[in-house]
Structures are given as C-alpha cells and as structure tokens.
C-alpha cells in the first residue's frame, strides 16, 4: 500500500485542551479509512487538520507533521488554499450554497475563484453529478435552487461539488449521519466507487457503516489513537480491550 497522507506525531491544542495527542497514522492511497470513537475523542479535529481547517480558529495550535505525498502541509512556505484544493471536505450537515442553483453549486469551486467557460462547466457538471449518481434525478432542474433538493440529494451535491475541483484526498465528517437510511445507503455505495480515484478518510459513528465501507479503521479515545489496522481485523480480532469494548457497544 502506498501512503498518501501521513500524520506524524500530530498534536492539536485548543487553548489548554489537548484534543489530539501525538497521533501517527498512514492513510493509504485509493483506500477508505474510517475514524471511529466516542463523541469528543477528537475525530473531527484530526480530520480538519488534514486540510488545515484549524488555520481559522485562533485558539487552535497544530504541531507535528502531516505529509501529503511526502510534503509537510504545515511547512511555512505552503499556502493552506493550495492544500484545500488537493484535500476536499464533505461535512456532516449538507451545506450547499443556498443562493446558488444546483448547476452553480457543482462548479462553485471555480465560480468563486474566478471564471470558468461554459462548455467546460457543462461537462464538469454532468460528469460530477453522474459520478455521485445524482444526474438522473436533477438533470431537468439544474437551474433550480439547491435548497429544493432533499437532504440526501443535497449531500450528494456537496460531494459532486468537492470532486469537481479534482482533489486527491476527500475528507468526510459523518457525511450520512443527518440522512435517512436509503440516502445513507446511496452515499455508502458512492464512497465505494470513489476510492478508485481518491483517497478517502471518513469519520463515522455507525459501526456497521465503518465495517461495510472502509478498508482501514482507526479507533480514537480521549484524543489518542488506540488502534489502527485493517477494518476486518479491528472488527473481528482487535488487539486492545478498549477497541473491542467500543465496537461491541459496551461503552461510548
């Protein structure tokens, strides 16, 4: 397995709160890694350090290294904007741009950054929406406001918007937790297909989901990485007692 993203002794503090404690993990290229653990254990914090989202939180302090293709993204010479183009993110609550149409949402990454020519845009909208299996559902209402879509459709739209800017890594923070079971299933199927092209890191509270869709699983507890390994192993014969207790629902 080729490493795409490597966390090296990653620590995140919010003021005095030590939210992520000395974590080292390799995320393999074209694989899906699930991050699991009880609420508040630092899953989102780990995820958000991979696209430098903490840059905007004045109290946050990130130390250690995160290597993307071997390059430390926290190097002072590296611009967070260029990192975010390579590392996309999908959020817990679908957050399409409410003032934009379905069409404009897909190409929002280009529109907000300047211009995009019409043919290129048309093609990008179609291919991105097809990729997230939304094309058939919305092809007749591309000009409709994005808020008219259902929650599940909005979330797939957000994934389409993310892949439209051609990232290499996609971070997902509980992307299906606000959705109904059917929409959840669609998102899961989608993730399955996306890993051919992208490296995916997904936070989830749903053990079955982690077991179904991920190749690797990282279990966090109180800001510490307790165990990391192949999903099959973590879910059948974990090394640590804490992991087993969490997975079997005995705590968390």
């Amino acid at each position, binding site marked *: 397995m080729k490493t795409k993203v490597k966390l090296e002794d990653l620590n995140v503090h919010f003021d005095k709160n030590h939210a992520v404690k000395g974590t080292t993990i390799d995320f393999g290229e074209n694989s899906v890694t699930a991050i699991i653990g009880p609420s508040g254990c630092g899953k989102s914090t780990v995820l958000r350090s991979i696209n430098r989202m903490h840059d*905007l939180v004045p109290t946050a302090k990130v130390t250690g290294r995160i290597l993307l293709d071997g390059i430390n993204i926290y190097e002072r010479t590296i611009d967070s904007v260029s990192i975010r183009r390579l590392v996309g*993110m999908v959020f817990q609550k679908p957050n399409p741009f409410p003032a934009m149409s379905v069409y404009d949402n897909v190409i929002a990454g280009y529109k*907000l950054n300047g211009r995009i020519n019409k043919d290129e845009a048309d093609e990008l909208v179609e291919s991105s929406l097809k990729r997230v299996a939304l094309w058939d559902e919305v092809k007749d209402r591309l000009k409709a406001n994005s808020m008219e879509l259902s929650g599940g459709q909005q979330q797939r739209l957000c994934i389409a918007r993310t892949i439209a800017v051609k990232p290499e890594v996609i971070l997902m923070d509980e992307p299906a937790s606000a959705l109904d079971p059917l929409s959840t299933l669609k998102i899961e199927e989608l993730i399955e297909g996306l890993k051919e092209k992208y490296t995916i890191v997904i936070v989830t509270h749903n053990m079955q989901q982690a077991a179904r869709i991920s190749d690797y699983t990282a279990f966090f507890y109180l800001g510490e990485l307790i165990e990391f390994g192949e999903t099959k192993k973590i879910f059948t014969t974990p090394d640590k007692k804490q992991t087993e207790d969490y997975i079997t629902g005995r705590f968390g």
Partner: protein
Amino acid sequence: MKIFSFRKLNNSVMTLSMVMATILVLVPLGLIFFHIMKMGLSSINLDFFVQIPKPTGETGGGMANGMAGTFVLIALASLIGLPVGILGAVYLVEYGGTRISAVIRFAADVLSGIPSIITGMVAYAMLVEPMKGFSALAGSLALSLIMVPIVLRTTEEQLKMVPDTLREASLALGVPLWRTSLKVTLRSAMKGVVTGILLAIARISGETAPLLFTALGNQFWSNKLTEPIAAMPLQIFTFAISPYEDWHRLAWAGALVLVTLMFGLSLSARYLGRTKQQS
C-alpha cells in the same frame, strides 16, 4: 387568595402602563406627521420640485437645488462611508480576534456617540480649512463619518449570523478567505446589510448640523463638488427662521418631502428585514 388578587392587579397595572407607553410613542409621531402634512401639503406643486428659491420679496420658487444637493451629498457620503463601513465589518468578523478589532469596535462606538455638529467640525478642519472654502466634498465627509459606525455595526451583526458551515463549504473548496468573505459570507448577509445601509441613509438625509459649516448651503445650483451646495435640511432651516411668509410655506413643504423620504427609507428597511426572517 390575597396573593392571587395582588398578582392580578399587578398584571393589569403593567398592561396599562405598556399601553400608555405605546401611545406616548405613537402620538408624537402621528402629531408630527399630521402637522407637517397640514402645513406643507398645500405648497407642494410642480414648481416646488423644479424651481430654485426665488429672491426675497418674490413669491413662488421651489427647492429643486436642495433636493438635488441632498441627493449628491448622500451619494458621495455613501461612496466614502459604505466601503469603509462594510469592509471594516468584514475585517472585524472574518479576520478579527486581534487587538486591532477591539480598537476598531471601540472607535466605531465612540464615533456613533459623537454629536453630529462635531463631525461637521472635523470635516471643517480636514477639508474646509485646507481647501479654503465650503464644499459638497466637506459636507459628504461629515455625513460619511456619521454613516460609517452605523453601517459597520449593522453589517457586523449580520455577518455574525452567517453560519460557519457556509464559510467552511467555500474554504474547503480552496477558495481563499478574502474571496469567501466577499462572495459567500457578505453576499449571504446582503439583505441585512442593505437594511443597515437604508437606515444609515435615512439617518443622514435629515442631518443639518454637520452641514452648517461644511456644505454651507447655496441659493443656486452648484456645478462643482468643491463649491458650497444646497441641501434640504439647510434650506428648511434657513427658510424657517426667515421672516417671510412665503419662505415659511416652502420650509413646511420641504419638511414634508424630507420626512416622507425618511419614512419611505425606514419602511423599505423594515420590509427587507421582514422578508429576510421568512427565508
């Protein structure tokens, strides 16, 4: 039993005083409007809108130059005040958290508390003295000083209400913070921002004191921004304290137009504020 009736009494006393308070607010407003209507309506005619004031002794004339002047002053004040106020608020909310933002916020609060005659003096010292003459520019500068804190504070409140998830959506696509601030955050707060702008314009359109020794006023049309310029509040003031019956009529008509303008601005601001809550 006793406690119960006491509470009941207390309740009706409260209700009564609130009704009284409401009446106390509404009655003066109604009286002002009614009185201005009564005194001014008869003098509103086409001449009023197209003619400039006649020399003393002649009857007729209008306030066309005053209305145009007020329009120019508002436009120019907005040109200075809006960018400063809006971009200042964007800085405070999107980039703030530093000591500078505390200073800016404090400065805005102080500025909004300063009597408007003082802003006139500031503009006098900054522009009238160096340029050796009263001017539309100086008047606009004085008005913009009143505008900035209003626009800054209302915009700030609106920007704070934009959910972080929206900012993050944009940032996560690799859109730089400054573009995100302008194209996503500010745009989604636009309705509320416009409401604040309208209120600020309503506020400055009636300001007289800051214009007294900046724009000065002008009996005629002015051709340059570096010349004294007429303004409705100034004309109303001059005409109202004059001894001529005919000028008094014009002053009332001017007051009616000005109050209607401010009323319209406030109503539009309210309407915009209302529609925003629904969406």
